[in-house]
């Protein structure tokens, strides 16, 4: 084999094994279906074969028996007719004890003329001397009549017709014919004296031979006849072979059984069927070769094996096709999933095929759509987070606030309020320190409150003590974590929108407490307030961002920024809540989850 061809072959085999890996649905379907069908076919084949061969065996036996019966009936018929003929000859010949008259001769000639199979009729006395015969021929001196078996048989049982075995008639010159001799010892009254004579009628053996040799028991099968008395062979188509020792028949067995038996000759099994002939003491044995009568069995066997083979191939092909058809949607889904795995979320499975596959495909598509949605949401969220953080970062160093504060400081310096300057600068520096807080987004409530206090201090100074403030915090609340710069925009809001325009002195109260799992920060002012509808609008999506930078005192970070940041960080159930009434004041509540700061961070000051 050329290397290229070898490579192609090995590639093909690898490909095939990969395709038909034992664990794939496709191969499971292919093989289980094939094995199942083949098992069923084999089972049916075995059952059929068994049944069929039994029937064939039975019918072979019956057939053989019928043929043997038929031969026996024919032989019995023939022998019976011969007996009647003998009787007729006897009556015609010996009536009145006269056998030598011309009338008798004429009658005998008529009988002989009517039957071709009568070879000769002869009458002997007890010493074997010829009395009369038809056709009239001299008996050979060398014939030894009294020594012949038919003569003995007639003498032994007088009055009983006996049939001899087939033998060669040697009574007359120029003829050696195969005959069966019918003989009987008869006592006749001749001339007033009783006289014992022996009547011999020789019939041609050809008729019996033909009756037997015409039988067809398969191609090789045959019928033979044995003499029940001594087991001598009466007729056998291969009698010569038996005498030569080239062939053997199990005569003893045939004599014993009444129905049939099986035997074996030179490796071939044979079915022997027997039947006794009435009156004559012969037994017909039919020999059928099983390999011939049972050929159907071998044929059916071969045929069934071929059928099973073809069915196997067929079933494998069909089940491969079938499983390929059934698993195609699954493989298509696998390909689609692989595409998703690679990052291609734009793919979509065609919805179709069998019910289950259809459902699976649409579920898969739904799932894919959901994933796409979630991903878009995440992207959106990340983007706004970044935006807000940038804004918060900007708030950390608001130049306007710095400018205003420093302006106030300069003014204070001009007024020589040194103590105030120190307080202000200290607060400013602390404010910035907490603002930066090493770039962390989350700080403790304590720090956040500290940040708010400094902011309030600065603003208090700037607004010339136009308002008072108070900070209350539970110890547990102070140790919780909060987002940075949550309070400051709200305080700024309270000052700018609530207190700045007040005639009276304002008051701002900041409280922090933990209720269950919730951290609650509250900024409460007694400023001008706002109508409730305005308060509820503050956090909606279309909240006016214009308030940003609306005053130089603002940090620039909107209230909504705070709300959104909290929700992004902690979830939608958290955030801000405004309660406000005109001329009464505003309360802002910040809800966050109560998360305790890790040890060592709480006293970060």
């Amino acid at each position, binding site marked *: 084999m050329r290397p290229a061809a070898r490579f192609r072959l090995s590639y093909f085999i690898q490909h095939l094994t990969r395709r038909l890996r034992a664990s794939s649905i496709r191969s499971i379907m292919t093989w289980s279906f094939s094995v199942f069908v083949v098992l069923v076919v084999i089972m049916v084949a075995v059952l059929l074969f068994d049944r069929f061969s039994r029937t064939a065996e039975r019918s072979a036996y019956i057939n053989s028996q019928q043929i043997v019966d038929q031969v026996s009936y024919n032989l019995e018929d023939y022998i019976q007719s011969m007996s009647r003929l003998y009787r007729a000859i006897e009556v015609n010949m010996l009536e009145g004890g006269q056998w030598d008259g011309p009338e008798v001769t004429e009658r005998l000639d008529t009988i002989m003329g009517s039957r071709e199979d009568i070879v000769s009729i002869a009458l002997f006395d007890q010493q074997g001397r010829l009395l009369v015969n038809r056709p009239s021929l001299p008996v050979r001196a060398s014939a030894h009549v009294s020594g012949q078996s038919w003569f003995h048989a007639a003498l032994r049982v007088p009055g009983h017709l006996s049939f001899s075995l087939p033998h060669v008639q040697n009574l007359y010159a120029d003829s050696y014919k195969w005959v069966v001799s019918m003989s009987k010892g008869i006592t006749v009254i001749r001339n007033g004296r009783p006289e014992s004579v022996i009547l011999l009628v020789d019939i041609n053996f050809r008729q019996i*031979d033909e009756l037997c040799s015409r039988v067809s028991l398969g191609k*090789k099968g045959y019928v033979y006849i044995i003499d029940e008395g001594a087991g001598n062979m009466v007729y056998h*188509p*291969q009698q*010569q072979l038996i005498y030569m020792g080239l062939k053997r028949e199990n005569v003893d067995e045939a004599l014993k059984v009444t129905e049939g038996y099986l035997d074996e000759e030179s490796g071939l099994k044979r079915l022997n069927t027997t039947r006794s002939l009435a009156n004559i003491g012969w037994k017909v044995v039919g020999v059928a070769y099983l390999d011939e009568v049972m050929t159907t069995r071998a044929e*059916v066997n071969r*045929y069934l094996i071929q059928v099973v083979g073809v069915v196997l191939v067929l079933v494998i092909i069909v089940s491969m096709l079938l499983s390929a058809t059934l698993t195609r949607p699954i493989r298509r889904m696998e390909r689609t999933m692989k595409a998703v795995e690679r990052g291609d979320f734009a793919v979509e499975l065609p919805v179709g095929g*069998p019910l289950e596959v259809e459902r699976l495909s649409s579920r898969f598509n739904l799932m894919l759509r959901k994933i796409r949605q979630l991903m878009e949401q995440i992207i959106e969220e990340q983007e706004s987070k970044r935006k807000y953080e940038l804004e918060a970062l900007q708030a950390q160093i608001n130049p306007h606030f710095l400018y205003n504060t420093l302006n106030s400081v300069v003014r204070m310096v001009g007024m020589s309020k040194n103590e105030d300057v120190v307080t202000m600068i200290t607060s400013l520096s602390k404010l910035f320190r907490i603002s930066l807080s090493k770039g962390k987004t989350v700080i403790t409530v304590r720090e956040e409150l500290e940040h708010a206090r400094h902011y309030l201090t600065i603003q208090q100074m700037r607004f010339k003590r136009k308002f008072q403030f108070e900070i209350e915090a539970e110890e547990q609340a102070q140790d919780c974590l909060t987002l940075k710069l949550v309070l400051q925009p709200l305080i700024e809001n309270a000052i700018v929108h609530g207190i700045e325009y007040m005639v009276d002195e304002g008051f701002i109260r900041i409280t922090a407490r933990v209720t269950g799992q919730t951290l609650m920060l509250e900024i409460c002012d007694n400023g001008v307030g706002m109508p409730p509808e305005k308060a509820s609008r503050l956090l909606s999506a279309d909240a006016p961002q214009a308030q940003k930078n609306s005053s130089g005192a603002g940090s620039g970070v909107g209230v909504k920024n705070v709300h959104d940041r909290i929700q992004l960080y902690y979830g939608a159930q958290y955030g801000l809540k405004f309660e406000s009434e005109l001329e009464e004041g505003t309360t802002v509540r910040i809800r966050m989850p109560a998360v305790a700061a890790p040890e060592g961070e709480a006293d970060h000051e």
Partner: protein
Amino acid sequence: MSRQTSGRWLLRFLTIGLLAGMSACGLPQLERDEPAVRQITLIAPVHADELGDAMRLGAEAAAKEFGAELSYAPFKPEEGSAAQLKAAVEALKGGTDALLIDPADSRVLDSAALQAADHGVPVFILNDNRSADGVQASISVDNEEAGRKAGLAMAELLGEKGTVVVLGRQSDDPDLVARELGIVNALNEQPHVSGLIRTSCGEGLGSCRSVARQLLREGQAEGIIALDAQASLAAAAEAEAADRAGRMKIVTFGNELKQLELLQDGLIHTLIVQNGFSIGYLGVKQAVLHLAGEDIERSTRLDTKVINAGNMFWMDNQKLLFPFG
């Protein structure tokens, strides 16, 4: 599943089913494959009715047993070697698969074997020890052993003392030569057989009878061993004519009807009989085996049987002597 998809699936399964059905039509059919029947021709011996019949019966039995078809070419008593060769050639032209022949002489044998080789047909020789190119096997009796048996039978018949004449054609037929050799060997071992005379009796019954008559007249011989049927008939006829029927011991070969009658009547005392049935049977058997590609024996030697008036009507001998069928 929508109605449309289920319809499509149904169609798909139907296609697969149709495919399966179509391939099922290609399934092997339950048929009986008959092997070709071999045609075997048996060319009968000339001038030998009884032997020919026996051979035919044996060949027929074998043909039936081994599933071959037999054609038999018999000859009329007056037909000779020319007719035999003609029959062989016709059988070869007729497309026989194997040729079984009991050749009249070596000319027939050589010629038939040559022609058979041309046709690529194997030749089996029956009842003859000769061989030729293209001959696959021969089946015959052991003629030397047959001669031995004849010699011993004669020695027994003679009893005390006597001279034996071997009467027969002068022939180069190896069968006859072997018979004679067997006779001579057997008689030489018998001290009471004083003389052994070889007499040739020429062609035809007439010349043979005159030789036999001469022998009887000279009164030298107590026993005659006739090498073939013709010589035995001549000897028996002359013995009867010379009123020495029964006393002149005659031993011969064959089972022709005339010889059997003479045996029954006591003119011939012993017959050495070969089994024609066996020869025919084994010939066909060997031919069938050879055609089936099996190894066969090149040469098969069969035994002969000694028959006298006493045992000639025994059941087994009747079948041997009087072929029926």
